[in-house]
């Protein structure tokens, strides 16, 4: 009997006719580390609410079937009772922290349970130790970074000593490094403390190597279940539109080309080792014209740049030096990606482009004019900034009004506003939501409304701050194609992002930032292959590139990004016989 048993589970939210969960049957054994994934809206979040009793007790609705957690039925037991067996950690780090200090927050659950003080201290000590927060014990909670807050959330749940921990997209708000730290903590809890972990994630490339089982959801049903290598190689995962790790894609491609590499491990390092064993002594076959797939738009560097940053420095009022001596030029029509660790100064830099922040030293010229002479509104007209969180800007009665907001602010006349609104709605595919309230739309749709409202006034430069956060693979692909479309129309685009795979597929110019400075600036092919620079900026190289860097010592080319290209090169060498 597994620690979690799900029998014929059906669930409908109150007032909604379509069931969110349609006949789930599942058994999870003690000590498993499971990855639950699937496209947005597939029911994974709903399912994990069933695991600790929030469904049915908090959400009500119509529940059929049964879920047994460690022998307890979710129907017959209150959430409070289940809380000592299963803990649930949510996406937003802030919205699950209650106390003013780390120690008191970890104590929160224990206090609720009425546990005596000395016993509490033991639990707290242990939980802080397991999550690496021992030194932060007396810190104020608002001072913590996003990653530390999530670890605090884990510690607070851990203190209640649950046998099962469920996490609903815990790394959405974190950079890859923060995400890795969380996964490592979970791995330790799973291996050493034998806690069953159920992880819901979109970032499969980061998470897959830690888990031993993947359950794939789509449309309220489980469509596949098994070890990660098997699930991600199968057709179902491709059809469901989840982000299959590049290594697996490579393995699949090679298999289709007739190259048999049995049981490729998910871990890039081990994959590469195995590959090397096979490639040693094989003739290296280069493609006829290497790197012809470089699709770079011809940048018009002859004319004056649309954004010219001259040696600027900026410090925040609290004294933090965010940007030091930064200079760069962005030409019209360029596609630029700014990457770097959290706190490197990326967002600070782009906030200078539209005047939200003014440089304390140095100057910025937007389209030839000194930004110091222009107001934020005037600069915003030229440089449209789309922020991470669409909920920071939505406020209108309906989507149409939302898009009109900026147009009205900028003084467009009525006919033009009409035209622009129609154009923007169509461009983002949200025409049918014209009269809907923005607040009832889903997360992805709200992001599109935010993007539409900025594109509507057709700024010369479009800047997107972390556009891929919380998006599933299909949404990211749509965004990528959309950006390509804009590029082909000659629009200057700047994105600030952590998502290496997203960037590498579009091959922009890359700016690496670290500690307030730009440490690298060049085309993707060059910057991405400079592993030392990437490390300084805390950027993890793309998976395929990691493989080729390793096998380059056998004579293979270094700068291969593309799965197809990689498969070609490898398969030719393996088939071509020995040298």
């Amino acid at each position: 009997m597994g620690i979690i048993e799900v029998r014929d589970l059906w669930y409908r939210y109150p007032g909604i006719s379509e069931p969110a969960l349609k006949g789930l049957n599942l058994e999870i054994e003690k000590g498993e580390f499971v990855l639950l994934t699937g496209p947005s809206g597939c029911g994974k979040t709903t399912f994990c609410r069933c695991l600790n009793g929030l469904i049915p007790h908090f959400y009500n609705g119509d529940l059929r079937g049964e879920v047994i957690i460690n022998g307890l039925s979710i129907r017959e037991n209150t959430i409070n009772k289940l809380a000592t067996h299963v803990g649930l950690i949510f996406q937003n780090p802030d919205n699950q922290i209650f106390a003013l200090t780390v120690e008191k927050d970890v104590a929160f659950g224990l206090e609720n349970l009425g546990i005596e003080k000395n016993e509490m201290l033991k639990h707290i000590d242990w939980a802080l130790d397991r999550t690496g927060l021992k030194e932060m014990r007396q810190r104020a909670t608002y001072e913590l970074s996003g990653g530390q807050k999530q670890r605090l959330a884990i510690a607070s749940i851990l203190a209640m000593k649950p046998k099962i921990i469920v996490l609903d997209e815990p790394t959405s708000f974190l950079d890859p490094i923060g995400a890795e730290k969380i996964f490592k903590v979970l791995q330790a809890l799973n291996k050493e403390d034998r806690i069953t972990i159920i992880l819901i994630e979109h970032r499969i490339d980061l998470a897959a190597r830690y888990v031993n089982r993947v359950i794939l959801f789509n449309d309220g049903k489980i469509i596949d279940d098994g070890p990660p290598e098997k699930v991600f190689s199968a057709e179902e995962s491709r059809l469901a539109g989840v982000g299959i790790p590049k290594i697996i894609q490579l393995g699949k491609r090679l298999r289709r080309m007739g190259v048999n590499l049995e049981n490729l491990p998910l871990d890039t390092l081990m994959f590469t080792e195995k590959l090397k064993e096979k490639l040693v002594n094989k003739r290296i076959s280069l493609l006829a014209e290497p790197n012809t797939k470089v699709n770079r738009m011809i940048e018009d560097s002859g004319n004056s740049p649309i954004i010219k940053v001259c040696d600027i420095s900026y410090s925040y009022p609290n004294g933090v030096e965010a940007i030091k001596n930064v200079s760069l030029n962005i030409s019209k029509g360029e596609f630029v990606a700014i990457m770097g660790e959290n706190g490197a100064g990326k967002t600070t830099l782009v906030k200078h482009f539209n005047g939200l922040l003014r440089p304390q030293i140095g100057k910025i010229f937007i389209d030839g004019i000194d930004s110091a002479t222009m107001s934020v509104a005037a600069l915003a007209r030229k440089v449209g900034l789309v922020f991470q969180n669409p909920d920071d800007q939505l406020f209108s009665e309906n989507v149409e009004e939302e898009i009109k907001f900026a147009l009205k602010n900028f003084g467009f006349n009525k006919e033009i506003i009409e035209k622009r609104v129609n154009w923007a709605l169509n461009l983002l595919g949200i025409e049918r939501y014209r009269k809907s309230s923005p607040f009832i739309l889903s997360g992805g749709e709200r992001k599109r409304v935010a993007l539409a409202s900025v594109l509507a006034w057709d700024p010369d430069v479009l800047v997107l701050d972390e556009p891929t956060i919380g998006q599933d693979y299909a949404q990211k692909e749509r965004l990528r194609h959309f950006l390509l479309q804009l590029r082909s129309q000659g629009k200057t685009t700047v994105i600030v992002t952590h998502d290496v795979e997203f960037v590498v597929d579009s091959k922009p110019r890359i700016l690496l930032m670290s500690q307030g400075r730009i440490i690298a600036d060049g085309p993707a092919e060059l910057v991405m292959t400079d592993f030392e620079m990437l490390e300084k900026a805390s950027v993890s190289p793309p998976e395929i590139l990691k493989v080729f860097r390793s096998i380059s010592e056998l004579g293979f080319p270094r700068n291969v990004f593309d799965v197809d290209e990689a498969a070609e090169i490898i398969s030719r060498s393996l088939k071509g016989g020995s040298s």
Partner: protein
Amino acid sequence: MTCILFVSAILFNEFSMLLIIFLSQIPIIITGRIIKEWLKTLKGGLLLATMIFVTNLFSLYFFRGQQLTSDMLEYSLALTFRFLIMITSFSIFFLTTSPDKLSLALEKARVPYEFNFAFITSIRFVPVIAEEAQSIMDAQKSRGLELEKGRFLSRIRNYIPILLPLIVNSIRRSLELAEAMESRAFGASKKRTNLYELEMNMLDYLVLGFTFLILIIIIYVRFFIEPFLPMFPSVRIL
């Protein structure tokens, strides 16, 4: 201690007495090391203090025969200082007491846990909401919203794009918080325990006793000594 100060401010009408009370707060402020914050509080209260002074002076002037006497000035000053003492005592209290200790004291005083929880949680989220307000302002300014321009009424209307997302986000947040609270067994036990304990040590008892003594002295002076003095030495301005 601060309660005594507060109460004494109300008890006395004479400017000179109030001035003494006001000045007596200063050593407390210095030992509490909250000088800068206190000055900020005073600055915030300056507008209101001036209003109190001016309105009192004017009403006395108009209703007592259109003459400016030193009595009137004194009286107005007295009321102004009463106000300053009150806000100072409040600010001393809140600046020197950590919210956790305060919440513990409330718990000891048998205040229902729900109120205590709401109190601490609101304080916990103040920095979060402040940051969110800043992000919202950034986002809306980037869409051409001008917060500094315009006439009074339109300026207020310009804050709707700031307030609405803030409110909507707060509502969404409370749903998420409720989920998290449930998941942490909120309300599981009627007898809720606490990580911290409030203990009274020798110094606490001494201060308590001292404060009580002062209270008795103040009441004595106010009701038994002062009314019998024709005119407590007051500051002659004019």
